[in-house]
């Protein structure tokens, strides 16, 4: 199990004629198997588009995306997505949402129970198995989204600003939980965010995209000792340096925007 | 297939594109009309299903000679009055109920009870009271349209953004001015949606009344043409009222867009 993602000369164009817009231009990037990479960029740079292209929801205009050297064609169970708006099935309970992927992949019923329970416990939602999404808070829904995607064990996790709609304390708790999960399971993670601090805190490398049409601007290597506590990490000098360098790079892209 | 055809259309020069698209959209109906023409007189007796050619020529005749106009006018008059009254009273009632608890307490039970009753069931009652004719038709249209409009106005008035009300209050608006300076304008978009929904209801109510309790109007014409066996005429009248209903809805949408420039 590798989970290496290779993106070559990726281009994505929307619309035709006078409404033609190029969302992504000549983007090449490689994510190693088991790596945790964040993608940041100014609004409208195409971060989410990039994610949906890797996921196979959208077709490329040109260029290729390959997983372990095999080009992708459409969505697949090797690439799991955690959506910004959760995308839970409202007619299914928490438990049933988590077992959905297992059902589709023909896992026998008894095994489904135990696997689902394991991942529900992992995201601290035990006791809520029979609740419907309408009864859950945003943070809980997102955790169900994560559990659901982990349950059928895709090689690669694609996360689209998953904590964007949550408040700060919750976001921090989930970030830490995500790091723990990554430490445990070792999956490849591609994490979209507009929060520079979050990107630096979570990942080993940060891909910074240019503004529209998005392409690769720079890549920052983040080498932090993450065995420390959150507070230690966030208040350290290296953290500040990484944060500033990413922020500066990003800020150059937003420089020409109109100021109030 | 859609994609392939739309690609081919894109390949055409601009002015032709619009025409090509329109033709494409209407082909299924064209097929239906052609089948209709073929079936009539051959598979099915012409009396039962007059061919589109007969219907359309009669249609032209009716319009040109103006035979149908007096009846059309009566029907439209009835709808206009019935709908107009229901808007007037419905909006007042709806907003009144939303803004005043005693008013709501008084009327609420009547509305809940009559809500599930189809108002056309009241046609015989209307005949009882008002006999056969225009008053009955107006009453039925009024009753049928009233509830949707009241409901819409009520919801709209309840949904008025509280911040708007507070802003007005802080600037010194009293309750009476509040109603017509803030609440009413804020509710207009939603009320117009309610009226838009009421228009087809008005037509259904009108035709119902005219089929049962009238000596004039398009509904009456449809019924009598059927009764005397003049089927092309019957179909022609149906086409007329449908076309009018369609225009009425479209026309109203245009009006709404003009009036609601601020949305």
């Amino acid at each position, binding site marked *: 199990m590798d989970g290496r993602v290779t993106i070559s000369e990726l281009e994505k164009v929307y619309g035709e004629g006078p409404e033609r817009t190029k969302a992504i231009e000549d983007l090449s990037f490689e994510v190693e198997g088991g790596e945790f990479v964040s993608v940041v960029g100014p609004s409208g740079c195409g971060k989410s588009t990039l994610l949906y292209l890797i996921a196979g929801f959208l077709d490329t205009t040109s260029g290729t995306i390959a997983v372990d050297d095999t080009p992708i064609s459409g969505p697949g169970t090797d690439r799991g997505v955690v959506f910004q708006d959760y995308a839970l099935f409202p007619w299914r309970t928490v438990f049933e949402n988590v077992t959905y992927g297992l059902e589709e992949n023909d896992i026998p019923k008894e095994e489904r129970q135990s696997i689902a329970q394991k991942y529900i416990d992992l995201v601290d939602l035990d006791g809520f198995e029979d609740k419907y999404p309408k009864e859950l808070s945003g943070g809980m829904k997102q955790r169900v989204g994560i559990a659901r995607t982990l349950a059928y064990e895709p090689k690669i996790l694609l996360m689209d600003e998953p904590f964007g709609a949550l408040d700060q304390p919750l976001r921090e708790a989930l970030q830490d939980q995500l790091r723990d999960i990554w430490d445990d399971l070792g999956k490849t993670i591609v994490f979209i965010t507009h929060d520079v601090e979050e990107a630096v805190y979570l990942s080993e490398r940060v891909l910074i995209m240019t503004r529209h049409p998005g392409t690769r601007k720079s890549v920052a290597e983040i080498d932090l000792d993450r065995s420390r506590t959150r507070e230690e990490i966030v208040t350290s000098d290296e953290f500040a340096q990484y944060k500033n360098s990413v922020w500066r790079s990003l800020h150059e892209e937003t420089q020409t925007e109109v100021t109030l | 297939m859609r994609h392939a055809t739309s690609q081919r259309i894109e390949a055409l020069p601009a002015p032709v594109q619009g025409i090509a698209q329109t033709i494409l959209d209407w082909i299924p109906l064209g097929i239906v009309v052609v089948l209709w023409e073929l079936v009539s007189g051959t598979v099915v007796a012409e009396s039962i299903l007059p061919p589109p050619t007969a219907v359309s020529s009669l249609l032209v005749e009716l319009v040109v000679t103006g035979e149908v106009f007096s009846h059309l006018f009566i029907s439209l008059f009835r709808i206009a009055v019935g709908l107009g009254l229901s808007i007037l009273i419905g909006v007042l009632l709806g907003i009144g109920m939303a803004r005043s608890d005693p008013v709501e307490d008084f009327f609420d039970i009547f509305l809940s009870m009559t809500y599930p009753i189809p108002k056309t069931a009241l046609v015989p009652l209307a*005949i009882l009271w008002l006999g056969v004719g225009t008053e009955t038709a107006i009453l039925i249209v009024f009753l049928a349209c009233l509830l949707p409009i009241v409901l819409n106005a009520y919801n709209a008035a309840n949904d008025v953004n509280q911040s708007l009300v507070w802003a007005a209050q802080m600037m010194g608006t009293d309750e009476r001015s509040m109603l017509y300076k803030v609440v009413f304008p804020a509710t207009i978009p939603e009320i117009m949606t309610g009226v838009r929904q009421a228009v087809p209801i008005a037509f259904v109510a009108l035709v119902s009344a005219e089929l049962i309790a009238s000596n004039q109007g398009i509904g009456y014409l449809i019924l009598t043409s059927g009764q005397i066996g003049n089927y092309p005429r019957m179909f022609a009248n149906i086409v007329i009222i449908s076309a009018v209903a369609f225009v009425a809805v479209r026309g109203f949408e245009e009006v709404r867009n003009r009036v609601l420039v601020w949305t």
Partner: protein
Amino acid sequence: MDVTSETQSGFDLSRLVELGKSVYSLVIVLVLWELVGQFELIHYYFLPPLSDIILRFIELTLSGDMLYNAYLTLYRALVGLAIASVFGVLVGVLSARNDLVDWFFDPIIKIGYPVPIISLIPVFMLWFGIGDISKIIMVAVGTFWPVAVNARDSTQQVQQNLVWAAQMMGTSDRRLLRRVVFPAALPGIITGFQIAMPLSLIITFVFEMVAGGGGLGALEIQGVRSFQSTQTYAAIIAVMFIGIGLDRGLRLIRSRLLHWT
């Protein structure tokens, strides 16, 4: 003083007051109705006293007439509605998922929508006569449109993310419709039924009033023609019960089926 019992009776009293506030206007109207009728302030034919109407209602129920006619009306309306539901949902959902189906049915749906379906009653009388079948077919045709349009629109509006989520977890295109699209569209589809239900009654009533053949609509008209206004009023009361019953019934079904909303 026992605080608990005082609170209890206080609670009951306030609930009673609430109830009173919501029905007092109705009670006033009913009482006035009875008085006006008893003292014949308005001619008996126009407004019989409430008691006479209720008596007539009981009479007709006991003789079986009311039930029989109510059954006829319901039978016609509901069978027609059922037929329209099956076809409407089929066409609606498929139109949203399949371009070819949509291309074919879209103009048909657009044209049919503004036609006041009631105006076709004489046509249906011509084609299918004035019996039950004719009424059922008319109801089916008339209610097809709201069901189909709602089914189509709610299927089209199913969130793309839900479909993508299902696909990423391995759902084949064949299974998508049943596993994800249909449940997600169900609330809108049921709304279509809720709109079509009163329409089915309207069509049935008008058809019965124009063509006869039994049913509550015919019963009402007959009351007018035979100068037995109590019959008309009694039939209207039956209509009210049926209308309320069906509406409540459908809402119950909706909340059971859609308990997750």
